[in-house]
């Protein structure tokens, strides 16, 4: 490696958490003016490496050099002051403060011993102008979209004279346009000589902006590659330590039903002109038994709203719903559950898991409410059920009594899945079941969905990742701007067609 433009070197980094090796001899180098992707599945050690670098965690072994100087940040504050700034996945700012304050708090311009608000607003405006954002900086942060908030976070990170900018999954809550804008800014900062560490789950994004990739797996260093030397397939293979072809083949399998197959299938659910004002325009939809129906569309296109109406989580104001031929009135989730419909919500942290309850208690929840609160499920029965599903879905937990919040994201998702599978639903609605989960677990969940459908269960599958939808769904409903615009089957289930439909072409 040429040392002339090396910005940051981390060498032989080790970090142990009470007996668990989180990082073992990891190396990482960052050059000036490059975007460097840090890749790995959940639990690979990306976050820990970043935490060590930003002073949130203390490293146990190894050395960090910044511009040739040996450094060891002990707090985020110290890391910032030597030029290492971080923008986290969830915007870590204070939404009750103004935009300007969020950029400058902790280092406000002072005049005569008091905060100089005028200068602060002016400097905030300049900092944001550099990122091509033109907003009123005196407004509170929560009056702006997540995308803008992310920009503010970046403005803050850059304004502290950052040499190293760490972007930890900054794109997970942005739509495509916003992502593009973010990339523009990243490129701009890169050209100014800042070294950017980019962590993301989206492979396409890595290839769109990055120069080099470092891959971690199970806390170990796998390798550092120039982007042109590592095609996507190989990257995935490095990340999960499996052959990509093998991975792909394992789930594709038998599921390739064609059009006619549907005509023989029984209808499970039929919605006629179901709709709710300001949420989703009235739509018709049919769900057959034993199929996986995909709801495709951009974030905010009405996918979730559509699903929520079917589950009774939102009350429709037009239309009707038929289940297996007879008209049903479903306006509360409990009615849906009693009619054998299950719904795994999009945001598992807010709508799904109850973090302080054990795995067992979380799994048993929906079954209990279906049976009624008065009919207590015996402890021994609960334990048996929980253990069965932990085995069935291979949930990684040391015991059924572990609190759910201590599990990784993917395993939390499996717990919710177990909760609903336990009620033996005829229709299972999965809203973004694989968001923020590593590729291995994603594949497992996709395979499980197909298996369930083959056993006769109807599944509605919502995901932002088209690849995943294509792999799992046999039919797709496309939504745009809260309107159902198309239904695709058979050979129309192809990336280009779907993209065009979503975008509004033919």
């Amino acid at each position, binding site marked *: 490696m040429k040392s002339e433009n090396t910005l940051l070197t981390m060498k032989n980094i080790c970090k142990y958490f009470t007996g668990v090796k989180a990082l073992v001899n990891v190396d990482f180098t960052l050059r000036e003016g490059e975007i460097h992707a840090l890749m790995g599945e959940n639990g690979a050690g990306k976050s820990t490496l970043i935490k060590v670098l930003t002073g949130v965690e203390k490293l146990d072994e190894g050395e960090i050099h910044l511009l040739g100087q040996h450094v060891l940040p002990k707090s985020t504050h110290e890391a910032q002051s030597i030029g290492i700034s*971080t923008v986290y996945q969830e915007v870590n700012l204070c939404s009750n403060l103004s935009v300007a304050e969020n950029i400058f708090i902790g280092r406000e311009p*002072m005049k005569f011993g008091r905060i100089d608000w005028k200068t602060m607003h002016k400097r905030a405006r300049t900092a944001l102008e550099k990122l091509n954002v033109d907003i*009123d900086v005196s407004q509170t942060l929560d009056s702006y979209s997540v995308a803008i908030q992310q920009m503010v976070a970046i403005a803050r990170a850059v304004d502290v004279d950052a040499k190293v900018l760490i972007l930890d999954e900054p794109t997970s809550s942005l739509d495509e346009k916003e992502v593009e804008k973010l990339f523009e800014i990243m490129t701009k900062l890169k050209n100014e000589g800042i070294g950017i560490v980019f962590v993301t789950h989206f492979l396409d994004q890595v290839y769109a902006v990055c120069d080099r990739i470092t891959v971690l797996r199970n806390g170990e260093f796998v390798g550092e590659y120039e982007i042109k030397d590592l095609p996507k397939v190989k990257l995935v293979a490095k990340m999960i330590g499996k052959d990509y072809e093998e991975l792909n083949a394992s789930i594709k399998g038998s599921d390739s039903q064609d059009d006619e197959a549907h005509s023989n299938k029984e209808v499970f659910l039929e919605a006629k002109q179901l709709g709710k004002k300001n949420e989703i325009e009235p739509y018709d939809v049919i769900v057959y038994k034993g199929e996986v129906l995909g709801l495709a569309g951009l974030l905010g296109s009405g996918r979730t709203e559509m699903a929520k109406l079917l589950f009774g989580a939102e009350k429709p104001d037009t239309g009707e719903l038929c289940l297996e031929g007879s008209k049903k009135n479903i306006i509360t989730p409990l009615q849906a559950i009693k009619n054998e419909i299950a719904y795994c919500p999009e945001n598992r942290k807010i709508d799904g898991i109850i973090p302080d309850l054990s795995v067992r208690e979380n799994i048993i929840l929906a079954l209990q409410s279906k049976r009624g609160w008065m009919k207590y499920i015996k402890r021994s029965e609960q334990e048996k059920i929980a253990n069965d599903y932990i085995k069935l879905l291979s949930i990684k937990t040391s015991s059924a009594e572990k609190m759910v919040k201590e599990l990784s994201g993917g395993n939390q998702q499996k717990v919710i899945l177990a909760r609903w599978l336990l009620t033996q639903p005829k229709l299972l609605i999965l809203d973004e079941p694989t968001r923020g989960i590593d590729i291995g677990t994603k594949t497992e969940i996709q395979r499980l969905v197909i298996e369930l459908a083959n056993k006769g269960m109807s599944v509605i599958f919502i995901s932002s990742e088209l690849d995943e939808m294509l792999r799992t769904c046999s039919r797709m409903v496309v939504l745009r701007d809260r309107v159902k615009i198309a239904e695709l089957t058979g050979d129309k289930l192809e990336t280009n067609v779907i993209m065009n439909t979503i975008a509004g072409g033919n």
Partner: protein
Amino acid sequence: MKTNLQTKFIPILITFLLLIGLFAFGSFKYTGFFSLQNFLNLLIDNAFLLITAVGMTFVLITGGIDISIGAVIAFVCMLSADLLQKGWNAAVVMVLMLVIGCAFGTGMGILITKFKMQPFIVTLAGMFLARGLCYVVSIDTIIIDNPVYVAISQSRVPIGSGFISWSVVIALVVLAAAYYILHFSKFGRTVYAIGGNEQSARLMGLPVDSTKILVYTLNGFCSALAGLVFSFYMLSGYGLHTVGLEMDAIAAAVIGGTLLTGGVGYVIGTLLGVLTQGAIQTLIMFEGTLSSWWTKIVVAALLCLFILIQRVFTLVKAKKAR
């Protein structure tokens, strides 16, 4: 900018209009209600509440709570009455009380921050401790006859045709200082940041722990100062003084637009909240036929109303942002 100012200050504006409404109602209905002195009496009678409510506002903005203040005020009255009776110097007693207040607040702040304990529980313990200590000093009322205290208690500061007490001056200085600290110092802005999102504040490199401890210290100082002012007002110490005062302070802050969830609050609003409660009390006094407990009932209704208004505002805002 303009719309922002409007939505941000609407709760305060509503309180302000309510206060004016109460005064207009009183002036219209009762002779002698409309006078400068009647308004100034509001300040005189509630100076101690204002001081401690300002301290409470800081705590509430961080998202915390302190229910020990009523007991601390009683303890300060009790101990100073006892020490003065034993012939201690008035100035020494005052300084000592302020130091005790600060130490008390710091202690609770350290437990809350360093040991990650619930503010409610820690200050509940603090409340029992301070209340209990009152009775260790004495179970009877102790009269304060120290000449300095009596002089301060009886002196008047003329304002136009009316007058205020020195306690009011102290309270207004506290208010002004608090306003300055909250809006023009790094410490003050960190207080808001912690209330907005404590984890974010930490990740932004702000000194979260020390700021929180300092907030409880400040509140301890305010309650000790309120205790001094209350002892000027009552000229006695008694173990059952200011029972439930913490709730009045919280109510004043909330009526003045402070969110119990933290991150939002203004000391000017707290002043309006204190005055509103005082005005209701005065109205009920003027009415003469109603028991003073009606004050509590009206305040209860107001609290419900204000919490509802705040909730509506947050919901509207959340909807707009979507």
